[in-house]
């Protein structure tokens, strides 16, 4: 092999490897993982209106799971949701809407009226933050437990054992973020940052940029 051949080939290969290394180490493009499919559902909201998973297509939706007679730490869950609601203006979302949905895991007691009272008490903006429950407790358990991966179990004393968590779902119905309260303190900053990361990916869903975003998925360049 002549030296003339060697030098350019080393240069080109080196540049390619450097580019790849830059992409993987510096992570100029960050994404959120596509974790699981979000479950499909048809719930009833605090005004008695139906809310389905399909109504939320195209929006980013942040879910949490609670019930109106829940003792603390449910209060912290509500505080986090309200903080996200109040600070949505800080995120560059383009024309993508963000919805917050609190799913009550106490369908026996949480009627629409009770949910409406509760929503007012915690300062929910009805255009953004919806409270829902189901008329079918068994299906609710499947949707929340298996679908969203949020464990809950009614106890004999009337309270409900709950593993509190937030779940972030993208416009295509894929779970992109899970924030378990027991593993990490609720962090509205992180959730808001993640909403921005999702919006960036939607903005770059076409053309050459889309390739970079797919590569970011491939190399697991996940936003912290």
């Amino acid at each position: 092999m002549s030296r003339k051949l060697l030098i350019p080939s080393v240069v080109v290969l080196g540049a390619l490897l450097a580019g790849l290394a830059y992409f993987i180490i510096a992570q100029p493009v960050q994404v959120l993982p596509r974790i699981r499919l979000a479950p499909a559902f048809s719930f009833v909201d605090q005004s008695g209106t139906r809310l389905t998973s399909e109504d939320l297509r195209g929006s980013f939706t942040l879910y949490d799971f609670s019930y109106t007679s829940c003792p603390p730490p449910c209060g912290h869950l509500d505080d986090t949701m309200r903080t996200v609601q109040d600070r949505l203006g800080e995120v560059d979302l383009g024309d993508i809407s963000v919805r917050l949905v609190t799913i009550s895991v106490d369908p026996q007691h949480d009627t629409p009226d009770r949910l409406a009272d509760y929503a007012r008490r915690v300062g929910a903006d009805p255009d953004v933050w919806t409270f829902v429950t189901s008329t079918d407790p068994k299906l609710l358990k499947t949707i929340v437990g298996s679908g969203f991966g949020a464990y809950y179990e009614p106890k004999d004393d009337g309270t409900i054992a709950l593993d509190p968590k937030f779940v972030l779902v993208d416009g295509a119905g894929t779970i992109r973020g899970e924030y378990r309260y027991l593993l990490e303190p609720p962090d509205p900053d992180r959730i808001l940052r993640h909403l921005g990361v999702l919006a960036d990916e939607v903005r770059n869903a076409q053309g050459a940029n889309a390739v970079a975003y797919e590569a970011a998925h491939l190399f697991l360049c996940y936003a912290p």
Partner: protein
Amino acid sequence: MRRIVVLVLLIGVVAAACGGSAGGIEVTDVWGRPSPSAATNAAFYMNITNGGDAPDQLVGASSPACSVTELHEMYMKDGGVMGMRPVQGGAVEIAPGATVEFKPGGLHVMCIGITEELKPGTTVPLTLTFEQAGDLQLEVEIRAN
């Protein structure tokens, strides 16, 4: 004279096998998927071109292969839920110079209650009724795609 009549009839039959035309309306590529008798319902697809100067409307269809025939369209909501519904007003507008495609995932002639198994390689008769052009006799080619 009789030979001309026969010839015209023959051309008519040949034309009907792949499509047909009347009053400026031309229908091509009429087809449907093979359906087992367990399927109950089937859909027929085609291209309808209005070569005339006036608008026309497809107002109905009928076929001996179907108990009832209706004009349906598929609709898709954001992100993947799909459904079927009868077309609005029960008619499909065919504007002058336009071609309206009836195709999978869009408009289709819904064949409700198939009366026989639709076997690949066979044809079934279909009559399309237009408001202006009147009835058009066609043959639906049964094929996989």
